[in-house]
């Protein structure tokens, strides 16, 4: 690649701070090599970042070319974090290479996200440098950004100051310059979001589906690999395009279903798919959302999405949260919605409300190889894994603790699970029978069960399920047991804190009303997925993905009627319910086109 091309190519990768300062965002590297872009924790630590997720084997260098306005002597800082600090070598160490020089300072050593000083480098007359991130361990070293400055002043570390500084140095305007208008904007491409997109696209709406990963499906994607559970209800045709086989959680066959899902969603001409775009703001005026802003997770470009109506299928309820929608988090007291089940008492529903919730999973697996396989010592993992041994992780690999918020502390939760996994595998590897075992796959994405629940006109509860109430606006139906998890460490401190147990309440069939699928106080906001309107126990059953897919499809059809009559989601219940139910009924009998099977 000649220099001119490089300069053009790097135009979008760097932000020129002043005459002699450059902020290079790691996620924008020309070639990430074996490093992965992790955009999961942007709201907390400020940016997507590159991570060396090598499962114990060092990954290929990430590389990029940087152009400078002036030659000279530059100080270099890297924004990074030691993700398991303690009395051992940091697990995620890496080096920085500038042109042919490997800078000596090992990076990834500091507790908490912040800047580590790397050293100085001379930028020559060509005013360009080749940068490489060199992984030293294979254990999740992470780099958010690299800052070059002729001054020796370190950039700010605290989240608030850093965000302000970033805005200043990048000279970013408040609003994205590009604006796109749609009939419906759906944020979150999990099963619920995809189903909403297909249902509304079938009805002729022009859809934007905004998703922060390269693959669709959320927890069902081949990046997380949870199989879909539940029944199809009224939406078998749509859900068959999106769901999975019932293979074990964490199974590689998720890749086959991934292909099917991606192909099907992409086949709709009126769905504009924005993969690798993460929403970062939503603005409501008079309780009506005006727009959602999103940023590309690698190149940093921004788009403002406008539409008369929006669907929050982010799982964490971000759109509702930013727009000021009412939401709940944690366990209600047992009396709030009369959700007692004496058999399991406090584990099921507490006498006093608290912020305990079902945890997040990180699935993983290993395989037998032909020859003996080494696995590094992982002293930094042992305080979590202790003596636990395992060679794979199913749904019970789940972590929740009452001092950790499933949204705000998701990175710590993920890292805790990584320590549990690597430590337990290391223990198992010490058994002669596992000499040939090798880690095959470890997810680095947090598979969440529960986070924010946006409040709708109806809050779906355990009682609705037990009494099998058939609401007049019942649009989702499910037979699967109410299934609420708790951490087994609550029963015995000697248990590992990353293993859960399930409590099942088996009923016959229950229904979720349409009124649980739109916001109570934001007039043009639908929700589908685990962030629908329910209590903690109410979420126990319908949180599985065929059920959340049913919610998505129900929302998609409702949105088409909203468009037809130019009304709000609530108006469908109050004024157009027979037509809505008829639409759901009639679409059941359409055949699945061969092209979408």
């Amino acid at each position: 690649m000649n220099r001119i091309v490089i300069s053009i190519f790097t135009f979008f990768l760097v932000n020129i701070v002043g005459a002699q300062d450059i902020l290079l965002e790691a996620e924008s590297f020309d070639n990430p090599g074996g490093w992965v872009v992790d955009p999961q924790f942007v709201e907390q630590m400020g940016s997507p970042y590159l991570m060396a997720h090598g499962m114990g084997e060092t990954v290929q260098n990430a590389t990029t070319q940087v152009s400078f306005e002036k030659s000279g002597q530059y100080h270099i800082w890297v924004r990074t974090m030691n993700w398991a600090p303690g009395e051992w070598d940091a697990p995620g160490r890496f080096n920085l290479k500038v042109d042919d020089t490997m800078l000596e300072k090992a990076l990834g050593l500091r507790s908490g996200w912040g800047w580590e000083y790397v050293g100085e480098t001379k930028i020559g007359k060509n005013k360009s440098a080749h940068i490489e991130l060199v992984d030293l361990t294979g254990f999740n070293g992470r780099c958010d950004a690299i800052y070059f400055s002729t001054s020796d002043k370190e950039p700010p570390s605290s989240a608030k100051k850093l965000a302000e500084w970033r805005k200043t140095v990048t000279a970013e305007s408040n609003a994205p310059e590009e604006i796109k208008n749609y009939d419906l904007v759906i944020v979150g491409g999990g099963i619920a979001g995809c189903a909403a997109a297909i249902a509304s696209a079938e009805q002729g709406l022009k859809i934007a589906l905004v998703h922060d990963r390269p693959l669709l499906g959320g927890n069902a994607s081949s990046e997380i690999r949870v199989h879909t559970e539940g029944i199809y209800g009224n939406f078998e045709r749509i859900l068959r395009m999106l769901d999975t086989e019932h293979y074990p959680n964490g199974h590689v066959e998720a890749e086959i279903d991934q292909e099917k899902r991606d192909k099907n969603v992409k086949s709709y001409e009126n769905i504009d798919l924005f993969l690798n775009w993460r929403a970062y703001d939503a603005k409501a005026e008079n309780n009506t959302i005006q727009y959602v802003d999103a940023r590309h997770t690698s190149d940093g470009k921004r788009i403002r999405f406008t539409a008369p109506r929006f669907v929050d299928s982010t799982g964490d309820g971000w759109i509702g949260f930013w727009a000021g929608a009412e939401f709940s988090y944690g366990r209600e007291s047992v009396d709030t919605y009369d959700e007692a089940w004496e058999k399991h008492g406090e584990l099921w529903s507490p006498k006093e409300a608290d912020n305990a919730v079902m945890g997040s999973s990180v699935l993983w697996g290993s395989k037998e190889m032909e020859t003996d396989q080494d696995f590094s010592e992982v002293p930094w993992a042992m305080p979590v894994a202790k003596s636990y041994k395992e060679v794979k992780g199913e749904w019970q690999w789940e972590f929740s603790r009452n001092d950790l918020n499933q949204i705000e502390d998701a990175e710590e939760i993920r890292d805790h699970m990584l320590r549990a996994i690597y430590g337990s595998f290391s223990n198992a590897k010490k058994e002669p029978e596992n000499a040939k075992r090798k880690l095959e796959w470890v997810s680095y994405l947090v598979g969440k069960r529960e986070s924010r629940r946006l409040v709708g006109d109806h809050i779906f509860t355990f009682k609705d399920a037990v009494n099998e109430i058939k609401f007049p606006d019942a649009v989702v139906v499910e037979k699967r047991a109410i299934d609420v998890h708790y951490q087994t460490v609550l029963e015995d401190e000697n248990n590992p804190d990353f293993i859960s147990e399930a409590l099942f309440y088996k009923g016959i069939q229950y229904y979720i009303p349409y009124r649980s699928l739109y916001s109570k106080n934001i007039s043009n906001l639908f929700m589908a997925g685990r962030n629908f309107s329910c209590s903690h126990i109410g979420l126990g059953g319908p949180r599985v993905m065929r059920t959340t897919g049913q919610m998505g499809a129900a929302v998609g059809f409702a949105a088409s009627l909203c468009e037809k009559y130019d009304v709000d989601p609530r108006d469908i219940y109050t004024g157009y319910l027979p037509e809505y139910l008829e639409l759901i009924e009639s679409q059941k009998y359409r055949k699945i086109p061969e092209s979408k099977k």
Partner: protein
Amino acid sequence: MRYRLLNLFLFVLWYGNAQFALTDIGGAVLQENGLDRQPEFFNMPWEYGTKLVKKETSMFIEVDSIGKQNIGLLVDQRERPILYVSDIETPVCADGDCKLMNIRLYWTLLGDYAGFDRDSKLPLTKNDHDEFSMADYLKLHLLLTDANSILKQRKIDELIEKPKPSEGNGPDALSGATIKEVKETVVSGALYSCYVAWHLVHGQLNAKLREYTSSQVTDETVFQMLHSANSNYQMFALGRFDEANYKEHYARIANIFETGIPMVRGFICKNLPEKFWKTPKLQNLFWNAFADVDINTRSLLLEHLNSASTETLERISTHLGVMTKNQLKIFLEQIGENGLVEPIRKNLVVFANDEKQTYGYIVNQFLEEYEL
């Protein structure tokens, strides 16, 4: 779970060996109207000299083709309820071959599994009609002790299916893993007997027994439960307590708070009457346990930080290292609001300068901002 089961298994193995090295392995003779010795396989404490008398209740278990099997209540000499018991005779069928299983089952007052006695004249047998060995009985006891056994949510058919071979290159198929786990859990060659016994013990009867106890329970029994080492008994008692009870049994409750399981500790912390948090003397025993309790309980304690005295805050400031990141932030926020007193500031400085402390940087940031 496996960790817990392994411990329990080792304990049962040890207990079994210890006991049966000294006694006749032939099994106990069931007594018709009561019990004056500890059941042979038992999870509850048994005081030497205890004599229990059986009283009939209106409850029963319905067993296919055999009919109703009565549930008795065993009471002590002061007529206090201690256990539920039932002499069960039930058919166990495998591949069309049926035989009767005789076993005496015991439940706690809350319907949890407590133990069993075998019938020395009618021992349990396996598919091949071999009698259970002592190790088999112990394994059955271990299985019945696990209320969350793999047998819980599955039909018998699902447990005997052969694993479907996996075509992918992925992790082992669940079906294969499940079958393996079932094999490890049940008595070899006696899957059906184990399955039937587990579902008898943990079936719908549990809720009925609990309800029966709830409807008849006296204050004396509730207080007895509070003093038990059984966590479910402790929870049952605490759930019935009012402010006066909490005050009256303050010492025992504080003791449970120190020694109990996290779930019970958490319940105590969340349900202590407001009066406790307004009275430093009443709070102290709970704050004293701050460094020793589990993380979840510590978080719940920290929710009452604004009621804590300066002395308590000072004491906590010597335990900064046990706190998680978020707990530390809560503590710092509170002392920031209260005003930083010198002894606490000193402890913070020591902590912030200790390179071994993972979250020293958070305290450093706090001190920097506070002293600006």
